[in-house]
């Protein structure tokens, strides 16, 4: 391993170090605020490192990792998500007066896992990243063990994740058995030379079960709503964004190296999964009264949309997918930010009716949430629109009419429940409930500011996606 490779790995090392830092800080019995701030600093440091080492990219670190523009983008996105999640976590836990310190260890570990996924080009690193992510998530989900059925959610996630991990491993083993290598590129070459054998396809199919589970594709989606509901909102935000970004990016990389989309059968499976996810996700959300479950179902649908961009397996599709991930993450952070900030000391702000008339009480929050919902629905002026537009464009370009038409139809169904939520925000408020908050004003304002910034980011992405698209294309070295 030479110096340049080490340099390229620097951000990931910082990321790994951040959990150690937190452990140390806990050992020194420092306060939540200090931990929070230092965690924030560590994440910023990661970003700075990424900036510093940008010239060394792209760089392979054989045999496990490759750090390229794609990885830089997704890792950056994950770190960005974690920055926001950290902020929400502070408010959430400060309000609950729980002991939140170890939480940050898990959070940063999970981040590391997701980040490793984005750079892995080998089954081993894939597996390691995925397990770091998963095992941290079990802890995160069940962290508030006495509330909200968190333990139940944690156990459900654990059991299913372990189960699907077994599928993942078995699939990997089959592929390894066929090709004699666990490196994506080598497998890809093998496929090019001798095509997909039955065992190979079987292996990939089984492997997909695990991926499908993590991304909550239909029919592996059943856990999503329960876990989203049971986990603390910041963790839910993390699961919905960072964890899925990591897994989706490895899927993209894997698909890209093997040319999965060229295989008729796999293509059919992907199309089917995409269609089923879009339909089932949106239909499930239709009458949902719990906003966390609603977002869970909506995320099922959204990853169905993403698969439409994945299907063509070309550069435009990839660009579209990355842009979609970006806009989706920003949007979901907004939504979960609101849920976090609205959650009281006793109960999470889960029920949709809780938000009734929010606009007339706290207009800023309501506007942020409305913008987020509109963005999820893919309405212009928000990030969701160019994202959906690009996904559609890549689908249309590849003449994948059935998924595209399903996308359109289900978007309309989806619009219904987003509008329902927005509508409730603008209803006449019920009588004033005295919501007293004793938070450090700085964090209070910081959250408001960050939510506003996120909202502006949504609008900016919606209005001027050009720069970001160009940026993504540069990172992918398409130009």
């Amino acid at each position: 391993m030479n110096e340049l490779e080490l340099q390229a790995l620097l951000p990931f090392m910082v990321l790994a170090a951040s959990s150690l830092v937190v452990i140390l800080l806990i050992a020194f019995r420092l306060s939540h605020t200090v931990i929070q701030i230092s965690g924030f600093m560590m994440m910023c440091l990661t970003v700075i490192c990424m900036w510093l080492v940008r010239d060394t990219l792209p760089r392979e670190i054989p045999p496990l990792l490759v750090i390229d523009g794609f990885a830089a983008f997704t890792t950056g996105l994950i770190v960005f998500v974690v920055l926001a999640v950290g902020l929400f976590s502070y408010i959430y836990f400060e309000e609950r007066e729980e002991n939140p310190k170890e939480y940050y260890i898990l959070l940063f570990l999970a981040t590391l896992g997701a980040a490793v996924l984005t750079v892995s080009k080998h089954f081993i690193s894939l597996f390691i990243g995925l397990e770091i992510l998963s095992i941290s998530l079990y802890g995160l989900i069940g962290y508030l063990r006495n509330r909200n059925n968190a333990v139940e959610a944690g156990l459900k996630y654990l059991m299913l994740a372990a189960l699907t991990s077994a599928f993942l491993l078995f699939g990997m083993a089959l592929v390894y058995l066929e090709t004699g290598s666990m490196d994506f590129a080598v497998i890809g070459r093998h496929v090019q030379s001798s095509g997909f054998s039955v065992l190979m396809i079987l292996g990939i199919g089984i492997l997909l079960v695990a991926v499908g589970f993590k991304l909550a594709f239909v029919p592996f989606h059943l856990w999503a709503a329960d876990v989203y509901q049971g986990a603390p909102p910041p963790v839910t935000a993390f699961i919905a964004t960072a964890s899925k970004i990591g897994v989706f990016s490895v899927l993209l990389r894997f698909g890209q190296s093997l040319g999965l989309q060229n295989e008729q059968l796999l293509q059919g499976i992907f199309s089917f999964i995409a269609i089923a996810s879009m339909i089932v996700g949106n239909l499930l959300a239709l009458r949902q009264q719990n906003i966390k479950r609603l977002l869970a179902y909506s995320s099922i649908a959204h990853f169905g949309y993403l698969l439409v961009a994945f299907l063509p397996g070309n550069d435009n599709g990839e660009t579209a997918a990355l842009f979609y991930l970006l806009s989706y993450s920003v949007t979901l952070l907004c939504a979960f930010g609101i849920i976090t900030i609205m959650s009281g000391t006793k109960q999470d702000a889960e029920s949709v009716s809780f938000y009734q008339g929010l606009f007339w009480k706290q207009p800023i929050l309501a506007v942020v949430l409305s913008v987020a919902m509109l963005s999820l629905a893919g309405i212009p002026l928000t990030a969701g629109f160019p994202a959906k537009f690009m996904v559609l464009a890549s689908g249309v370009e590849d003449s994948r009419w059935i998924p595209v038409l399903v996308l359109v139809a289900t978007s309309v169904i989806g619009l219904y429940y987003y509008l329902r939520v927005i509508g409730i925000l603008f209803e006449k408020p019920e009588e004033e409930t005295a919501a007293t908050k004793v938070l450090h004003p700085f964090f209070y304002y910081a959250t408001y500011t960050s939510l506003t910034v996120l909202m502006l980011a949504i609008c900016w992405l919606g209005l001027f996606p050009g720069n970001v698209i160009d940026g993504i294309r540069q990172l992918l070295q398409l130009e």
Partner: protein
Amino acid sequence: MILIWLIILQLGAGILSWLLSKRDNRLAAGIALTAVIACLLLTIQLFARFRPSFAGGGQWLMEYRADWIPAFGISFHLALDGLSLAMLLLTFFLGALAVLCSWKEIRQRAGFFYFNLLWTLAGITGVFLAIDLFLFYFFWEVMLIPMFFLIYIWGDTRRRYAAIKFFLFTQAGGLLMLLSILAMVIIHAGQAGRYSFDYADLLNTTLSPGTAKLIMGGYLLAFAIKLPVVPFHNWLPDAHGEAPTAGSLILAGLLLKTGAYGIIRFVITMFPEAAASVSWWAMLAGVIGIIYGAFLAYGQTDLKRLIAYTSVSHMGFVMLGAFSFSEMAMQGVVMQLLTHGISTGALFAIAGMLKERLHTRELGRMGGMWTTMPRMGGIAMLFTMASLGLPMLGNFIAEFFILMGAFQASVPLTVIASTGLVFAALYSLRMVQKVFLGPPSVENITFDLDARELVVLGALSVSIVLLGLFPQPVFDMITNVIRNLNHTYE
């Protein structure tokens, strides 16, 4: 540059009136009114400036272009021709009146109301000006959201249902249009080697007849839902019925017109052969709309729903005219857009004023209003007559031209459509009779129009009469546009 100012002015004024509304509702309304009137004056000035050049010259009177998303060949491209100018005049005229209508009706959260109103208008302005298809779609959707809020927040009892229904219907069509746009862009990219969403570029795309038909279908469906064409009209009575007065006025007066505008600007221009191949069916849809809308209008017991169904009927004429491929009918269509905007807008304004006074939309609870409100009765009579196509008033010119033009294309359809005039008389007279005639009920004793309402209705009355007696300026404005259309389908 002035084109972009028209949009920015409204967007800005919208935000301003929202922010300032905490202090004073009137201030918010004042800002809104000032902005819209400023836009109206700007547009009138444009009209005066370009009036000599309507007849000749290139396609566009004015253009503004800036890069937006270069990676996809998307630019911020606005352009003005006679058709857009006519529609803009209508937009700002009705916009100003919509603000005036809301002056007293909206007491709560007025700032946010005017914000939505202005943003809707800005979206509509954008739709009429955009000639980059991405931008067009963008504005197409942008005008929906604030409209949704207008209905959802300030609407009547069934407002939630109506608002969501409205949004879902239009969105369904919109997304199909987006697909069509994308398909077209990608085919064009295959031919020209680069992405472009520009109208002028896409016009030159060569499509196989089958593809052209499919792609056109997407556009047509979107516009047909907006127009609306039976059987895609179901959002309209609910949305119109439940919306606040200004909302109904803008919905009926302007939003529907964007559908017609789209048909003229995109469907017929970009897919002349495909449009011609379905023209008979489209005309049939128009005719069905005329008759079916009239039947439903007659059956209603709710004043605003009744007026809403008359729109379905009147927009059937637009469909009939647009697809008859005759210059005369096309002139009539544009005229119909203007006059229907004015006449139906006026009827909605009247319905709103009645609702302010009686707190009901039920026809059964009205009656004899002419006795207590002679001024309103007279004006209502005028617009009823406009709606049933009485000569002297603009609607007649429009429908006359449409029918006369369509007659060249299909005699049977035109004859059936003409019977729509009889049905129009049926529902119009029933409406007037139920509301204004008959014995006055004691509870209906109320006051006649005040000065503000008189200004609103007076302006509408004068304009509908002027359009009926001096329609030529409008025809001059659009002749060139329609000639260009003719070239494409000859």
